């Protein structure tokens, strides 16, 4: 078991993984609990059936998709366990860890080119299509249909803030202080965003508590899934269902997606972002005993320090050439020729702004090496604003706080 708990669960609860009992923490996500119990290989990819593990732990990847209580494709990083929750690995033929379809990975060493593979050969293409439909895809249908929700919720506010990380919290607090009615939504089960990825320490807890208290009305586990029309946005609350939110202005503080590192074996279970590994450590879960950390960022630094304090052997490295292992990380090979035996690779680099909903709402983007940064419309009458990492800014609390004050002033001015 390369991954383990650093302390017993705060609120232990027994769930099952593929029929076997596992004790996890009720206060942390299912994925986090499983990694803490030594299970890091949770899913398989749709085409090559390559082993996958959590890579972001914030609802932005495919690494923790599992069948939960008979429902397929649940992002287990966003769901907390209850007593008796039934979790199963999906997408497998035979048993979870010996999947015969793994062979596809070896048959196609460079990848599958659908445009040419077996195309135009009479008979063969039909057979191959039928085969491909059977082996590819994610999960199987639910045991029973989920009952349809009858009614959509409705909320009204002056300003809706999308994202409950440090910049969204600061924006909400600044607007609240100016007497505006705000509603902040965040897709994670707890507010704090990137602050939650700093592996604990009383000062971080206090910082988050303070910021959450000042931020006012909020909804967690709620995602802005689209703009309806005019000032109406559609929000999906995991527990309560869909919600139409009407606001006079919108602040996009959606943060940024974790980067995808480029090296051989970059999808192996055990390769994850510094924010993911930091979140785990905060839950009392250490991702490995021997950990290679690449990147010099606040989150990579904080994780390396926390992991060492928890007893792990940590190597800070430069450019990684390849990561090897069959179903999880076993060794890491550097460009400079050195290699290490390791259980985990934790990486960080400039992150990719979450521009999706902002663009639908009318924002522009600007391409940088890190991704597509949001540029809110410059028109004087625009009621769309952006703050924090979504604008391409790097993680900097003082800068976010200052930007929040300026942003709140411009919104007050816009409403005047």
């Amino acid at each position: 078991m390369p991954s383990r708990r650093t302390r017993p669960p705060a609120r232990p609860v027994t769930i099952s993984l593929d029929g076997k009992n596992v004790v996890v923490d009720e206060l942390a996500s299912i994925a986090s609990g499983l990694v803490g119990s030594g299970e890091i290989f949770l899913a398989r990819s749709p085409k090559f059936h390559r082993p996958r593990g959590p890579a972001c732990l914030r609802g932005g990847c495919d690494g923790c998709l599992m069948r939960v209580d008979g429902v397929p494709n649940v992002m287990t990083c966003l769901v907390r366990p209850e007593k008796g929750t039934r979790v199963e690995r999906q997408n497998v033929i035979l048993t979870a860890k010996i999947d015969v379809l793994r062979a596809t990975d070896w048959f196609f060493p460079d990848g599958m080119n659908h445009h040419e593979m077996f195309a135009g050969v009479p008979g063969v293409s039909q057979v191959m299509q039928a085969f491909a439909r059977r082996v590819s895809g994610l999960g199987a249908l639910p045991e029973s249909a989920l009952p349809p929700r009858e009614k959509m919720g409705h909320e009204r506010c002056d300003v809706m803030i999308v994202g409950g990380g440090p910049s969204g919290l600061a924006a909400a607090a600044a607007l609240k202080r100016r007497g505006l009615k705000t509603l902040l939504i965040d897709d994670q089960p707890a507010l704090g965003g990137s602050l939650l990825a700093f592996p604990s320490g009383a000062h971080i807890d206090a910082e988050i508590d303070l910021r959450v208290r000042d931020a006012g009305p909020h909804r967690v586990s709620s995602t802005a899934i689209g703009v309806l029309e005019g000032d109406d946005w559609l929000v999906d609350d995991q527990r309560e269902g869909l919600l139409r939110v009407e606001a006079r202005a919108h602040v996009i503080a959606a943060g940024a997606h974790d980067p995808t590192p480029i090296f051989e074996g970059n999808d192996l279970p055990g390769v994850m972002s510094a924010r993911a590994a930091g979140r785990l450590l905060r839950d009392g879960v250490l991702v490995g005993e021997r950990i290679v950390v690449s990147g010099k960022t606040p989150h990579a630094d904080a994780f390396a320090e926390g992991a060492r304090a928890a007893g792990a052997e940590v190597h800070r490295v430069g450019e990684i050439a390849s990561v090897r292992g069959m179903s999880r990380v076993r060794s890491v090979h550097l460009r400079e020729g050195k290699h290490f035996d390791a259980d985990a690779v934790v990486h960080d680099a400039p992150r990719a702004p979450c521009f999706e909903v902002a663009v639908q709402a009318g924002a522009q983007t600007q391409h940088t090496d890190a991704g597509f940064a949001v540029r809110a419309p410059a028109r004087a009458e625009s009621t769309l604003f952006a703050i924090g990492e979504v604008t391409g800014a790097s993680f900097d609390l003082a800068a976010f706080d200052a930007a929040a004050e300026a942003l709140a002033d411009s919104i007050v001015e816009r409403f005047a």
Partner: protein
Amino acid sequence: MSAKVLVCRCEDVTLHELEEAIGRGHADVESLKRYTGFGTGWCQGKGCLAVCARILAQRGGDASNPFTPRPPFHPVTLSHLAAIDDEDE
């Protein structure tokens, strides 16, 4: 495990495939996406778009515009979608 560099985990798209597609003249993000299928899986580009655009730009392509993300921006169950009202108010 076979030695692959994955640029898109959800759809198992490799760096090799991406570079081959660029070599065939898919020189902007939208065209590259349509040919290789990156960004069309579970996460809808949250993990792969930035890295594919960067590689395209490094190889001389035009990465000035992303592909167009379409709502819903996060998976929603049909059970939740059933509650949408389409009445005019």
